[in-house]
């Protein structure tokens, strides 16, 4: 006869992985370029990039909005998470953070264009807080799912914030290169930020791998998937290309703009595949339950 009566389609696909990546990249890019107004000091090297990065962040937010709305079964109801706000749902908070962050970025950019420098600090500060909350909520969205054991870890929100810092460094670095605004101080700062974020990513990578290696039956099924059909994405693209190679380039190579930008781009590739693997491997063990 048959062994199973039903097969379940996993609820979240590539749209969510791309959204998590883009929204994290956009939010942390804004946090970086708002830092001259929020923190000042060494962060002032980001000042020449403020306007162009803020514009690019708005473009990324627009792409994220389209991805989110089109992923819904009822796209016309996209405002419902705000209208019928549910405080225990990460998605409701995410919708709120997303809208408020967009308002902050528009406000920050407008204040810059209109020369209202007194508004830059409060808007930058509010935007920075929301910029941290946005990737944090994407991780919380997974962590809150107690049914999916790979996701149900407090490390996931922290990991998503750190991955967002790496991808933001790539975006800002690329933008500086395209605009010819790179200088030694900027390169050194991005290099130091990247080294920190990549080291934390490596620690969390090993920690998560150990957790599931010593884990429950479902976590071991996830590990089996990671070691089989997701092995290239996890071990090659995420670990080697996305973490070890850029770390090696930054620690051992010359601290040139091209080298730092190259390392940043590789780390951004890893930041995407890491999320992608977590999203996919977290869902498939339940497909036949």
């Amino acid at each position: 006869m048959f062994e199973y009566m039903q097969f379940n389609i996993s609820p979240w696909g590539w749209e969510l992985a791309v959204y998590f990546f883009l929204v994290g990249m956009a939010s942390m890019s804004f946090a970086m370029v708002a830092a001259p107004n929020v923190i000042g000091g060494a962060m002032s090297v980001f000042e020449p990039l403020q306007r162009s990065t803020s514009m690019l962040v708005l473009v990324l937010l627009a792409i994220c909005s389209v991805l989110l709305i089109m992923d819904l079964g009822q796209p016309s109801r996209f405002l419902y998470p705000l209208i019928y706000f549910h405080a225990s749902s990460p998605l409701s908070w995410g919708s709120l953070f997303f809208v408020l962050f967009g308002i902050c970025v528009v406000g920050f950019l407008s204040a810059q264009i209109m020369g209202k420098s007194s508004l830059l600090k409060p808007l930058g500060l509010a935007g920075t807080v929301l910029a941290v909350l946005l990737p944090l909520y994407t991780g919380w969205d997974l962590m809150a799912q107690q049914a999916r054991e790979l996701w149900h870890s407090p490390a996931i929100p922290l990991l998503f914030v750190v991955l967002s810092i790496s991808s933001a460094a790539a975006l800002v670095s690329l933008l500086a290169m395209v605009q010819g605004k790179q200088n030694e101080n900027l390169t050194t700062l991005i290099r130091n930020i990247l080294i920190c974020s990549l080291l934390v990513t490596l620690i969390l990578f090993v920690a998560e791998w150990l957790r599931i290696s010593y884990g429950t039956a479902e976590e071991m099924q996830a590990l089996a998937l990671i070691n089989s059909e997701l092995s290239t994405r996890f071990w090659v693209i995420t670990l080697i290309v996305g973490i070890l190679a850029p770390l090696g380039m930054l620690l051992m190579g010359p601290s040139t703009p091209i080298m730092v930008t190259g390392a940043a781009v590789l780390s951004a590739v890893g930041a995407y595949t890491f999320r992608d693997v977590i999203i996919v491997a977290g869902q498939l063990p339940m497909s036949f339950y």
Partner: protein
Amino acid sequence: MAIGLQAEPSLGVPGKKRWAMVIDLRRCIGCMACVCADKAEYDVPLGVWRTIVKVKDTGAYPNTRRHFMPRLCNHCDNPPCVRNCPTEATYKHEDGFVLQRYERCIACRTCVAACPYNARHVLPTNRSNVKIGGVVDKCTFCNHRVEKGLVPACVQTCLGRSRIFGDLNDPASEIARLVGRHKTVVLKPEKGTAPQVYYIKPDRSITEQIFAAPESYAARSDADAFFNHNRGSRFFGGVL
């Protein structure tokens, strides 16, 4: 502590109802009448189910056994789908039902991800008779029947009286007697969801089953056909 619920857990709370179901697997013959009754009651479209009966064969000839495992929404006393829903489209009724408001659902599938029992599905949009589509749906314990003093459709039709429904908070009810006198099992109790579908004598091989590639040719073919029908994807992307 339960958070994000519209009604507090009512199991064992005096003066409150806690509707629940017992499934006595010693009596299930795998006739699928419950599945059909449910399809008829709600015009459930092809490809999705509110209730199913999983079938698994164990052992090698001549020492074999076929196991039936009726599955449905567990109407948890602490449902993770409810607290994760961003619009409160899915909510907990004070009598224990976990219900769905179609007019609020945005089909973000957070509830599908949150459910440990795979009890939720998305209704297709191209339905011929019923206009409700593109939203998440699930078993309701037939609350429209229960409120009129009837039992759910699957319970009504069950040939062997394998499915028994009632108020677990009422000590005189049949279901309270069954849960009190028999060794019962709930699915995934470690998730803290307090599921309210109690099984009598289930087999370990079918309660613990997680990801495993189907073994038989027929099961593999079924799986391939299922995923191909859904545009070759194991994910919702492109299906809605």
